């Protein structure tokens, strides 16, 4: 990788809180600018775009539809199938086309993150396909993908208990921050960077994704989850506004 500009500057002799200054000037609990849009793929039964700053995810939902091959069908419930991938040019070092180990892992955890919000019992033998593609990547792609997919599922009219909201919290040296960028993910000073992806059902304390890269003190885990949960409320509002906007347009 090429040389990085100085991502974060230590501010010495400052108050204990926020010894780390974020390069984009955000507060520790401030999300990047969110963009949420419904209906970006007219062919799909439901679709949405969700962006955290420069990270842009699009999701399309097809189904419920009959699952083939037949032996994969489940007569007691519908099945959720998620596919996540990066578009080749969405990252600096071009990603080879086709599924990678990374994309397979993220597809699976995204599926697990969305499933608790869905009620698929009324769709026996059927499948709901969720396709997530990252148009532009600047860290937090899986969380942006989950937010987009959750909106797309709602747009497709799939019975849901709740929307799923997701965000990557992080720890830069000793400071907890929300919604880390790629630049922050590569932070190396002090204790280094920790990336903590969270997904939860919006109106409950049910978490459906907790993934961590890096190190963190056990007592800080609760704090980081609380920080993530607070941000999920903002994400939920953004998702709701986008979903409501298409209803209002068709009402007029």
């Amino acid at each position: 990788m090429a040389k990085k500009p100085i991502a974060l500057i230590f501010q010495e002799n400052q108050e204990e809180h926020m010894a780390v200054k974020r390069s984009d000037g955000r507060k520790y609990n401030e999300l990047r600018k969110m963009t949420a849009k419904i209906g970006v793929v007219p062919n799909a039964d439901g679709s949405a775009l969700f962006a955290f700053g420069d990270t842009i995810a699009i999701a399309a939902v097809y189904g419920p539809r009959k699952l083939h091959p037949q032996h994969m069908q489940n007569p007691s419930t519908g099945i959720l199938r998620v596919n996540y991938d990066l578009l080749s040019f969405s990252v600096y070092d071009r990603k080879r086309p086709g599924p990678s180990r990374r994309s397979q892992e993220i597809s699976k955890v995204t599926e697990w993150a969305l499933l608790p919000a869905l009620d698929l019992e009324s769709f026996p033998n059927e499948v709901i396909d969720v396709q997530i593609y990252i148009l532009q990547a600047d860290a937090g792609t899986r969380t942006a993908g989950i937010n987009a997919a959750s909106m797309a599922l709602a747009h497709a009219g799939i019975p849901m208990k709740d929307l799923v909201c997701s965000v990557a919290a992080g720890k830069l040296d000793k400071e907890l921050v929300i919604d880390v960028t790629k630049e922050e993910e590569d932070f190396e000073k002090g204790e280094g960077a920790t990336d903590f992806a969270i997904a939860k059902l919006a109106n409950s304390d049910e978490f459906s994704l907790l993934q961590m890269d890096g190190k963190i003190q056990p007592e800080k885990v609760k704090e980081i989850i609380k920080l993530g949960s607070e941000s999920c409320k903002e994400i939920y509002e953004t998702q709701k506004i986008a979903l409501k906007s298409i209803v209002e347009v068709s009402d007029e």
Partner: protein
Amino acid sequence: MSSMETTNLTKRTLERMFSEGKRFDSRGLLELRDIKIEYNVSKKAEGSARVIIGKTEVIAGVKLQLGEPYPDSPDKGNLMVSGDLLPLASPRFESGPPGFNAVELPRLVDRAIRESGMIDLSKLVLEKGEKVWTIIIDIYPINDDGNLIDAANIAAIVALKNTFFPEIIEGKINYEKKTSKKLPLSEEITPISFSFFKLGDSIILDPTRETKKRTKLLFPQKI
């Protein structure tokens, strides 16, 4: 339902309407839908573009890499066009190994760009036989409502025209910094494809998905 095939009845109706010079969306037989073009839609690519024709949407991105030239052209840069029919874009596209259509699309775009001589590949050489630029164009449909090939072609061309070289530090690419240098593109040559389709005795341009299903591709035309 979006996944429904067009019926024989639709085919007969189309045939009749075409013979009268009419189309479902009241266009003329050789009239295109409105085309919307945006560029720089993905910042991490060296160049990118989005083309929307009616409800068809295609995104193309250009990445530049340093590599070795092919043995049979040591004094030329490399060009690669790839792409996939994402299952995102249509209920008809499936995951897995690419089918014929997924292979055909980037192939046609590749030939239009390569054979037209739009890019002067000989100007992409850093050290003859050793180090050249490789241009990789990736094309992805976001929504397929017919005429993907022409949309893909425009997207690839616009992305190329909007491509800037990244900075090179000590022989390595620094993708984070783009220079103001553009690709060595011809001023005169711009390959644009027009795909003509045939049904009965009628020839039409820019079919929607429904129409395309029932017509036959004649040949892609270049200028």
